[in-house]
């Protein structure tokens, strides 16, 4: 009805719905993730975690009100810009970090495609067979470095710039392993569209079992790409204060924080799509039998589990030393991913 008023075609309105739902989903999931992080870390360390903030002074809902309170606080904080900062770059830096993080989700199919009245609807923002496929998240992931770099450089702070340098060097180094492990996947599938990858997994089983080395490399490199512990070299309280966002306050800092969690969601979505069978339901060969919503639910469960793994790993492992990080990236992850590629190439030409 409303679509006829706006004179939208079904395709266009479907697109609009998808964009709204996807971005809304990302934005809504990221703040609760901070809650999961804080409460989860508390439980892991035998603590209780934040549980005091209450809605209207009464409703505590397990500390979820802290999320709201934090958001509100960010809006009302004073917006400081350091004296010698590059003002314009300082302003756009959070956006530069935030937007690529959001964009990465676009190619990921959250459920199986379905047909209504002869029109096929796909549950991913960008329709399959667009030729870009999984190159797209890789490309967008590459752009994510700029947010960190620009934020670091524009705030005119030595800690910031050290953090930014470390983060960018790390992200560029680990992109190699990332790309190569995905390449091995392409070789095995014979295509590079996420839909093809998922359908292949439905048919032959998850890539987690078929390419464990590739999964390991991809997983570790995703941690490095999201700048999460044990690879959080953009920050480092004991060495460089808060790293690249030392100078950021109020909602700018809020955006930086959200960016981290959206990166986690997108990284988990990628891992789920590539190695955990996407929306497919395990121990079940034929994906088309299930209703669409079940597949979406399956995807969401896997996604949330991966997000939890990100949190879980953070509170298990200590941070690496920087030279160890580079050693791991170049001498272990890179050769491992090459080995994985060669093995897979040999396997399919056998």
């Amino acid at each position: 009805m409303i679509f006829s008023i706006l004179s939208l075609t079904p395709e266009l309105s479907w697109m609009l719905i998808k964009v709204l739902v996807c971005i809304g989903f990302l934005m809504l999931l990221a703040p609760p993730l901070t809650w999961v992080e804080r409460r989860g870390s508390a439980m892991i360390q035998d603590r209780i975690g934040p549980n005091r903030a209450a809605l209207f002074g009464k409703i505590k809902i397990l500390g979820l009100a802290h999320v709201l309170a934090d958001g509100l606080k960010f809006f009302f904080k004073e917006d400081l810009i350091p004296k010698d900062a590059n003002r314009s770059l300082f302003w756009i830096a959070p956006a530069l970090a935030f937007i690529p993080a959001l964009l990465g989700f676009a190619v990921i199919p959250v459920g199986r495609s379905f047909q209504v009245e002869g029109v096929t609807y796909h549950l991913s923002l960008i329709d399959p067979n667009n030729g870009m496929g999984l190159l797209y998240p890789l490309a967008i992931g590459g752009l994510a470095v700029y947010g960190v770099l620009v934020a670091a450089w524009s705030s005119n702070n030595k800690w910031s710039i050290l953090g930014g340098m470390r983060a960018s060097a790390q992200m560029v180094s680990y992109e190699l392993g990332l790309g190569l492990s995905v390449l091995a996947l392409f070789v095995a599938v014979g295509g590079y569209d996420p839909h093809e990858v998922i359908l292949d997994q439905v048919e032959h089983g998850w890539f987690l079992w078929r390419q464990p080395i590739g999964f390991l490399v991809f997983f570790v490199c995703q941690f490095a790409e999201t700048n999460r512990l044990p690879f959080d070299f953009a920050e480092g309280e004991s060495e460089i204060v808060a790293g690249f966002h030392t100078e950021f306050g109020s909602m700018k800092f809020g955006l930086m924080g959200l960016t981290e969690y959206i990166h986690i969601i997108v990284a988990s979505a990628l891992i789920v799509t590539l190695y955990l069978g996407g929306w497919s339901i395990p121990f079940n060969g034929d994906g088309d039998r299930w209703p669409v919503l079940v597949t979406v639910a399956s995807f969401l469960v896997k996604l949330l589990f991966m997000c939890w793994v990100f949190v879980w790993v953070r509170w298990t492992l200590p941070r690496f030393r920087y030279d160890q990080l580079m050693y791991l990236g170049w001498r272990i992850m890179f050769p491992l991913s090459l080995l994985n590629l060669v093995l897979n190439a040999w396997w399919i030409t056998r």
Partner: protein
Amino acid sequence: MATLVKKIQLSWWDRLYFPSVLKGMWITWGHFIRQILTPTSKRFTIQYPEMKKEMPEGYRGLHELKQFEDGSIKCVACFMCQEACPARCITIEAEEFSDLNFTQGFEEKRPKVFKIDMLRCIYCGMCEEACPKDAIWLRKDYELAAYDRLSLNYGKWDLMNTYADTDGKPIQTESSELPPSPPRNFVTM
């Protein structure tokens, strides 16, 4: 003398790191599950305003000026505590005092002003040691907060009521010191 740190050569299994990472994940998972299944009241954390820690024996918290059962102050203003106080936070002014109900008409000494500056006090307990009358006690309360410095300069009545809540006693004020009592019939000699 310098100690030589032995460099431990890791075996290939340790150098894989992955098994130990998994082991660590298992441990944190165990902690997570154990903590999440423990009811809040049994957790190790003491959630402060609702739950309070039972202070150990011999803890020196806020002071209380003790009183007799009839409500009169035990302190005789001997200045021993003031002398003993290393932080010099106690100020006493003595007065003479005579009342038929309490002292049977004899002249006695008691503090007119008994002040402890709680911000200066170091809670060493020397006053408690010095007191010949067991009139000042350092007990287990540790909650001391106010909006200004002046209100932490505790006077005689504040000090007498520090533990009124804890003990469930009525709060003593200047007027309640001398409860109205019927005039006694004195036996004349």
